[in-house]
């Protein structure tokens, strides 16, 4: 019996103690007609060896080549120590730290994480994570709605240059509470169309992403000030890695952003088909009681020694039930563990160097690809590590052809932005080598010539 340690003798001893004849008897309160016996849809059990044989074959089948896709998930190097430590049973097989004294490892680590995220974003506080960047944006919107008492409207402005999946997810989360999202269109230069803002009425919050979905740098100072002047919250969606290089949301405009969210994947989390990763959520001190999710605080034990514990639990569903700030319970603890270790290893300098190298490699990639006749940059502003290219033909077709050359060429944008059927979003992280870039260039040239 896999994973069940009972011997036949054990079962007899236990049944005798209980005073039951058989295990079946223990289910005697369940109405007979509810009892099932067949599970035909579940295959017969196999050994770990056979299971791993099957899974290995499937994993190997998907090895696709060199990755030039970004779009919210990035192929960064992760120091070997990160997951060697994260996968320790003491971290991986613990529950939520409800018994603080027996969970100081996890608790202190999350406190350190909160501190790092606050430092990175330039905000005062951070929670202990939400599910992912996209759902985190939904939580941020609801949080703004609760916290911004000055504005009566239930409208949130969201830039069309925010990741399409983030916009979709946030709307699907927030709409049940009557939140309405209005989209600020994208201008021809790939940035938020600031002129469209003039027609906007009262809004609770404005959502802007930096770098935006196209990899471009928005004029976040202007956006932040615009929001501030109207009493709207500025919700920033950011790539945490970029913050080692770019101005942090806490310093945007004259007052800074109010709420910052995003996905932690670039901080030591493997792409792993997109999950698990984690969403982070940071804000100003004064908003902390509207923050969803867990928060760790430092306190003292009865001998006066420092220690860590879950705090502000009155915000949470297990205490406040229907009146909680969110229903979130289990979050993404283990990924936060990885990210904390990752940030410790990289330090501010290390992250900055990675960020700089990403910019440099993307620059090289773009230079190489636009050397091919018919391939052009679609937008020209400053960018981080992603870039939209116009191809001389349908980009989805080209991406399929590139697969034969072992190249994951990027994300075709037609599905997300009508009219961009020939556009391709490409990305080069610090891992991409000159050889790989040249390989991409020559493969693309072949595809386009054929």
């Amino acid at each position, binding site marked *: 019996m896999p994973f069940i340690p009972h011997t036949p003798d054990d079962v007899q001893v236990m049944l005798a*103690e209980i005073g039951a004849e058989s295990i079946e008897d223990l289910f005697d309160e369940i109405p007979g007609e509810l009892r099932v016996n067949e599970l035909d849809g579940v295959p017969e*059990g196999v050994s770990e060896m056979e*299971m791993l044989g099957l899974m290995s074959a499937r994993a190997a089948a998907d090895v696709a080549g060199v990755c030039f896709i970004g779009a919210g998930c990035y192929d960064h190097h992760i120091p070997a120590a990160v997951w060697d430590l994260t996968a320790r049973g003491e971290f991986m097989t613990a529950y939520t*730290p409800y018994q603080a004294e027996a969970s100081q490892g996890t608790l*202190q680590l999350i406190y350190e994480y909160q501190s790092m995220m606050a430092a990175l974003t330039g905000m005062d506080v951070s929670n202990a994570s939400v599910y992912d960047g996209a759902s985190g944006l939904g939580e941020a919107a609801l949080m703004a709605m609760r916290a911004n008492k000055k504005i009566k409207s239930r409208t949130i402005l969201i830039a069309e240059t925010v990741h399409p999946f983030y916009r979709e997810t946030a709307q699907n989360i927030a709409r049940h509470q009557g939140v309405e999202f209005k989209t600020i269109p994208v201008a021809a230069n790939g940035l938020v169309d600031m002129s469209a803002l003039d027609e906007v009425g009262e809004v609770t919050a404005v959502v802007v992403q930096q770098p935006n979905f196209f990899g471009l740098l928005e004029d976040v100072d202007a956006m932040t000030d615009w929001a501030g002047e109207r009493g709207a919250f500025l919700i920033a969606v950011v790539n945490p890695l970029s913050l080692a290089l770019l101005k942090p949301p806490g310093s945007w405009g004259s007052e800074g952003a109010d709420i910052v969210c995003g996905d932690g994947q670039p901080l030591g989390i493997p*792409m792993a088909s997109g999950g698990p990763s984690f969403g982070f959520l940071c804000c100003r001190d004064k908003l902390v009681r509207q923050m969803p999710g867990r928060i760790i605080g430092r306190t*003292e034990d009865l001998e006066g020694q420092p220690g860590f514990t879950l705090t502000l639990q009155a915000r949470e569903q297990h205490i406040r039930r229907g009146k909680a700030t969110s229903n979130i319970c289990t979050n993404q603890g283990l990924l936060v563990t990885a990210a904390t270790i990752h940030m410790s290893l990289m330090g501010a300098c290390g992250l900055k160097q990675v960020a700089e190298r990403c910019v440099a490699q993307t620059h090289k990639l773009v230079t190489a690809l636009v050397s091919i006749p018919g391939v052009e940059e679609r937008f020209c502003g400053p960018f981080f590590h992603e870039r939209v290219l116009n191809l001389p033909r349908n980009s989805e077709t080209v991406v399929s052809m590139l697969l034969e050359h072992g190249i994951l060429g990027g994300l075709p944008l037609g599905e997300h932005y009508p009219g961009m059927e020939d556009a391709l979003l490409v990305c080069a992280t610090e891992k991409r080598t000159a050889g790989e870039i040249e390989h991409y260039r020559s493969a693309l040239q072949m595809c386009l010539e054929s």
Partner: protein
Amino acid sequence: MKKNAATIFELGKTGRGAMAQRVPSGGTPANIPESQLRKVQPALPEVSELQVVRHYTNLSAKNFSIDNQFYPLGSCTMKYNPRGAHGAASLPGFLGRHPLAPEAVSQGFLACLYDLQEILKDVTGMQGVSLTPMAGAQGEFIGVAMIRAYHEARGDLERNEILVPNAAHGTNPATAVMCGYKVAEVGLDASGDVDTEALKAAVGPQTAGLMMTNPSTCGVFERRIREISGVVHDAGGLLYYDGANLNAILGKVKPSDMGFDVLHMNLHKTFATPHGGGGPGAGPVGVGERLLPYLPVPMVGERDGVYRWMTEKDLPQSIGRLSCFMGNAGILLRALAYALMLGREGMHRVGEYATLNANYLASRLEKAGFELAYPDRRATHEFVLTFSKQAKSMGVTAMDFAKRLLDYGIHAPTTYFPMLIAECFLIEPTETETLEELDAFVSALAAIQREAQSDPERLLSAPHDLPVRRLDDVKAARELDLVWRAR
């Protein structure tokens, strides 16, 4: 010697770093205007690689975990997390996959998801399963959003209330509210079953649905479940099954047969994926016929052995996307690996042995003089103990028992939940623990009971042998210290 609690920040020094992790920089990017650049570096720790490894290795040792201890946390299903499943999800091919890789180079991964969808359909009896929810609570949200979409699609717009038994987990009412519903709580009778008279009085044209677990968080199986589902269905409401307790009945009862229309499962409980110190989890949703059109995307479809993503184009009535990519893919792979190793025989045994362990423990504890909250009921995979008597007679609370248990090297059961039972423990041993471990737990509790009589201070000031003594939660909340600052 107590290990100290220096944070990673305090170990740092200006200019120190894990230098093997420094990649050659590309230099300050010429294309980015000065005004967009960061002026002051973020205050991250500056530490060597050895310092990082040592710090987090030692921190980890300050945790209890399944790998170290018996961890009978009720409603959490702290069972063994198979290392083989971790190995499967950690295969380079899976870890290195970009979520937006074309389907042509994703067949292995998609096949895994498809197989898992099918297995989960079978064990719950549901017609369709979507794997996207990233934890139980998100599954609840998605489930209730589907209930809402269903009523709305029918033009049945007056239904604005969700019923919830008062023993329910906090996520249930919180979810209902997030989905724009009011919550009405329904009481239990003395035996722990839902008070059906109260339920009948509560249902009406305003009822969108009822959320409940079965077995309930009181550790008993709701015997009148078919009557309850009849009542709710007759009133036009739908039934939501909170699958957090599915471990109790896995392979024994299918939620569909009890009359549930929609459910979530906690794969990080029933399907043995690790809890990670608070996540990640996965909370796939399953639905019956009526809610099929509303399932969230992405899902995986199959034709002629070719797998593909199903999106809103295929499922136009879907409630849409609730995560950036495919939810917690790595957890889904672990759950599949576990299911494959268990197989159908193994599935049947989960509920059986989880129940055997709980009933054995309940019986032994009762004979040892502890008070069961529902002494006349069968325990399911978990059961409730109450320390009301001890609190009254000896001045020691359930919390004191819990803290003292830690000194015995056993994680405390869930305390003060369900809220309606005073001074309680919710105890869930799971099927993967041995008889000897259960006996050791009884001995520990009995020893603490004796201490409570002879030396109650020992409990009141517990724990004694952990990295910290009892912590001051009030101070934590009053004098908020949420981020490290150089002092």
